[in-house]
């Protein structure tokens, strides 16, 4: 999936600079777990999938990328309006500002990404208010638009997420995250714990949003079917290292590493 907005395309072609450039990223825990020496570039409009089993270091890597975990070494350079900024060495206030304007994080469990005691409208509106929106009517209008975009009926705007199904909660989390028009989205197993049919609906929604908003996405999952449908590129992690990377369909259809071959063959028809 790639940016199809001609303006976005033109802009990135002119600058031609990765949105995110990661080098030598390392975070080890005493137990030997973590991630080691990870490097890659992510381009505007690209969706990068990171797969691996539990303990492969993929969640640690995502945490380091998103600024939730401080890496032991390495850099995560983000293109902030044409200026390359290392978000690892950046001051915390700047990094937090980045993560509520340019970046966003979709959690596996919607409870971690939503305020369960706040209405759907309030959940969506929070990021708007955090960046200075002070007109109640306008906030509500934007929230209504976004609820409809993620296929939640507008008349549920004052309901709390507790009253929603798992799929609806996850869609609400996505609306809450995308309302301020971020450029980079981190996703941690966004379809985990959902029924297959609900997953499909969510994937379809995500694909449309990625294309229409020109989003760059880093998605961590163990579900190869999800990356097959969503990701342009794939990184396979094992024991904290990236053991294989490439075009998603190439890695899945012609895996080179022994582990990737095992991973692909152990899944029925992806």
């Amino acid at each position, binding site marked *: 999936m790639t940016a199809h907005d001609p303006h976005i395309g033109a802009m990135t072609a002119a600058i031609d600079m990765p949105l995110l450039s990661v080098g030598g990223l390392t975070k080890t825990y005493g137990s030997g777990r973590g991630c080691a020496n990870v490097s890659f570039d992510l381009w505007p409009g690209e969706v990068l999938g990171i797969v691996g089993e539990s303990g492969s270091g993929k969640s640690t890597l995502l945490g380091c990328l998103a600024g939730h975990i401080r890496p032991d070494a390495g850099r995560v350079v983000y293109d902030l309006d044409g200026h390359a900024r290392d978000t690892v060495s950046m001051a*915390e*206030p700047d990094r*937090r*500002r980045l993560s*509520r304007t340019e970046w966003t994080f979709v959690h596996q469990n919607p409870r971690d990404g939503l*305020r369960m*005691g*706040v*209405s759907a*409208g*309030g959940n969506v*509106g*929070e*990021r*708007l*208010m*955090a*960046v200075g929106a*002070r*007109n*109640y*009517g306008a*906030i*509500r209008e934007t929230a209504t638009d976004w609820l409809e975009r993620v296929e939640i009926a507008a008349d549920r*705007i*004052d309901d709390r997420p507790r009253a929603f199904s798992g799929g609806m909660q996850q869609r609400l989390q996505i609306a809450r995250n995308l309302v301020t028009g971020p450029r980079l989205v981190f996703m941690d197993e966004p379809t985990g714990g959902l029924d297959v049919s609900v997953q499909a609906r969510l994937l379809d929604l995500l694909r449309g949003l990625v294309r229409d908003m020109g989003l760059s996405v880093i998605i961590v999952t163990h579900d190869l079917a999800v990356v097959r449908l969503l990701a342009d590129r794939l990184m396979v992690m094992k024991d904290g290292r990236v053991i294989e990377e490439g075009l998603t369909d190439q890695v899945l259809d012609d895996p080179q590493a022994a582990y990737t071959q095992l991973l692909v063959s152990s899944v029925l028809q992806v």
Partner: protein
Amino acid sequence: MTEHAYNFAYLDEATKQMIRRAILKGLAIPGYQVPFASREMPMPYGWGTGGVQVTAACLTPSDTLKVIDQGADDATNAVSIRKFFERTARVATTTATAEASVIQTRHRIPEERLSEGQILVYQVPIPEPLRFLEPRESETRRMHALEEYGLMHVKLYEDIARHGEIATSYAYPVKVEERYVMDPSPIPKFDNPKLSGMAAIQLFGAGREQRIYALPPYTEVVSLDFEDHPFEPMKADHDCDLCGAGESYLDELITDDAGGRMFVCSDTDFCAARRAGGHRGRLVPEGDAA
């Protein structure tokens, strides 16, 4: 035990020094919650232990103290705190707002405009305005440090979504000098405008939560709101039935079993002074000024 068994104003000098340091820091960073080592006081939490410690740290033998509870000088809480300092500090006390150099208050700001040289000490139950929405102290402190206040407006948004207007009527959150969001203690939002530009020093003490914060004189304090739902101070749509004041904050009293009721100034000193000056309200017979 005699009064002489106590140090001046009950607390020992080292403790008062510690509290004064917190007060000074609070004054230097208006609206910022300064942690302090709150002491056990001879009264239960919730009865103004934070305010009492701040008052104790501020008092000098030449001070005149006034204590009010919901605007009243004669409420139990006010009386007991006043007596406490009469006994332990032997300072002069008064009910007249203008005569007091230190005023300790629970849930009100006096109607009469305060002046330079006066100190208003608030009793605060929960100092953290973000607490209701974010239970983690570590996170709320970070939010203050980084000025991440979107959440505060979420609370107001929820009010409007549920009630059609900002229903928060007391402890209405404010922003201090465009920096810290602050809980003004459970004063009615009617009093919020008085917080801003006040000539007196305003000190806030939370005993159980161990926080002190402050507003130096003439600090700008803005009540949070939305452009299309602006902040509105609110009071009962009546005049005082005793003194006839139309601009003061009123308490509603039920007077009989038949549903009879009356509205009176919550600030007893203000009301009494007006009546002494000849003003009279609906329920005061002609010729009876007091």
